[in-house]
């Protein structure tokens, strides 16, 4: 109990410090912080669902783009908080449709569906803008400063990690662990597997939609090819995997170094950016399938243990 209180206090203190940081930086620093916090949130939200279920969602940018575009479309007609709510609601509805159609089936259907979702939404929005409104591309003039965006993202990041923490101690968290170990046992223990997955996917997708919506005012000019850029899905995925999608702080720890690296790469190798990213990503899948934290843990434990880990215990013989 005491430790929990201490952890919460530390968490709140760290948040306050982080909220104060941008007052010390120029515009560039704020932009950097803002982008970083955005990706921390995206990666953490992605891992909420994909970490425990191992369903690889490639739809991050579909939801991100939905959020951003909703703000672009509504920025002149509705007050800002209402726009955020509308964006979240749209993201939630899309997530429910996708989830209901695919989550009862084998994981590969979900992956395929999410893989094409961004392209679908992008083409639909483009079609709508060209045929119905007659303009492709919109301007966003909202009186929201970089610091304000940063603070919103910081709050959302805290909420996301908080949700992850709460799930870890709740029934749904146990349900996820059981599902991860053995779906057959899970179903026979009375767990409604499809509902657990759907709930988590919906929560994760709604947060991702909000990240897009909150960041939208940064751009001032928005068009489908900007906000539905597959690279965002890709970066989110690789950050979460590098840090370890199954751990509370994993995505955050993966996002910080990779975000800085990407910034540096895109400044110095703009043409070869995506090749380097792709190779880096393949390397991560190969070398650290469980993420950095698991890797560190393993290295940490190794000297302490004299018995090798993988000694067969004769279980196969019995079965």
């Amino acid at each position, binding site marked *: 109990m005491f430790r929990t209180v201490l952890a919460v206090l530390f968490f709140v203190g760290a948040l306050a410090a982080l909220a104060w940081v941008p007052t010390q930086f120029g515009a560039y620093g704020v932009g950097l912080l803002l982008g970083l916090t955005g990706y921390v949130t995206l990666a953490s939200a992605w891992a909420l669902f994909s970490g425990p279920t191992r369903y690889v969602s490639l739809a991050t940018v579909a939801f991100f783009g939905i959020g951003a575009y909703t703000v672009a479309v509504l920025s002149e007609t509705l007050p800002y908080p209402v726009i955020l709510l509308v964006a979240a609601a749209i993201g939630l509805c899309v997530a429910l449709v996708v989830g209901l159609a695919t989550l009862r089936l084998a994981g590969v259907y979900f992956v395929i569906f999410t893989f094409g979702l961004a392209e679908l939404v992008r083409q639909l929005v483009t079609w709508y803008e060209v045929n119905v409104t007659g303009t492709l591309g919109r301007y966003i003039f909202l009186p929201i400063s970089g610091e304000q965006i940063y603070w919103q993202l910081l709050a959302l990041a805290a909420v996301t990690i908080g949700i992850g923490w709460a799930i870890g101690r709740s029934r749904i968290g146990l349900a996820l662990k059981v599902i991860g170990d053995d779906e057959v046992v899970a179903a026979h223990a009375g767990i409604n597997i499809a509902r657990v997955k759907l709930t988590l996917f919906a929560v994760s997708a709604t947060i991702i939609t909000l990240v897009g919506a909150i960041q939208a005012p940064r751009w001032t000019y928005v068009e489908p090819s900007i906000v539905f850029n597959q690279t965002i899905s890709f970066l989110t995925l690789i950050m979460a995997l590098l840090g370890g999608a199954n751990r509370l702080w994993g995505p955050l720890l993966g996002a910080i170094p990779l975000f800085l690296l990407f910034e540096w790469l895109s400044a110095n190798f703009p043409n070869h950016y995506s*090749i380097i*990213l792709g190779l880096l*990503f393949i390397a991560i899948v190969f070398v650290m399938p469980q993420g950095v934290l698991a890797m560190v843990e393993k290295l940490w434990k190794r000297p302490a243990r004299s018995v090798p880990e993988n000694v067969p215990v004769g279980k196969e013989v019995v079965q």
Partner: protein
Amino acid sequence: MPTTVLISGLVLGGTYALIAMGLTLQYGISRIMNLAYGETIILFAFGAFLLFSVVGINPLLGLIFILPVAFALGYGIYGIMMQPLVRRSVKTGNLEVDSILATFGLLFVIQGVMLVFFGSNYTSYNYMNVGVNVLGTTIAANRLLAFALAVLIGGALYLALAHTRWGTRVRAVAVAPNSAPLVGIDVNKTARFAFALGTMLAASGGVMISMYQTFTASMGVVFTMKALVVVIMGGLGNLMGALVAGLLLGLVETFVATYIDPGLTLAATYLIFLSVLLWRPSGLFGKAAR
């Protein structure tokens, strides 16, 4: 003009069927869900473009160069990238997720390479771009040629699988990868071969596409999606299903583009996908699960 729609739909569907066959080989036999499949298609579309516009070799002749290169590329990719994952999956059972992630990375690598060499502009070239009259419908000769090629290559593959010793081996791996070794089949070799063959089909699809439509380096996703939808409609690993579903998708797309709006073809593809998932997840021609 329904005959026009019917004929151009079937012609387009021929290409879809062919690329879907390649994907179904890779997933059904090699167990690799290859998200970079569409990028491979586009890569070889650029290859055909280079051969045609720089060296002056027509795409039909170009296939003689491209197909072996594609086979070698597929063979190499499987050996370098997939084999370690396959080996690892014996212990972890994560081949599906690992292959999805690895090929997602590969997607960005291939796309990046294409962007460096060809930029992000739409590319096309003029080859046999003359109208031919088929049953009262005028259709571009290059499209007809593409269709003929698809029929030829797809048909040859189908016959090879159904009637040769090699085909029996491949089908055995598809149906029972765990039991195949018991009858002396080298699963790993067969999987590698099937993956390379799938890449070859992707390449031939790319060459066909380059003959009759414009393409860009960032377009691969659309083709991967279409191939995937066809594969799922036909039933995972089912070649005949892929053939029929591919033709069907070509018809639907042409119909939507003609009567509704060309901008909504992908949406139509998705709608089909969604209804198949909800109605018959095992595919139109697959056996019901559970």
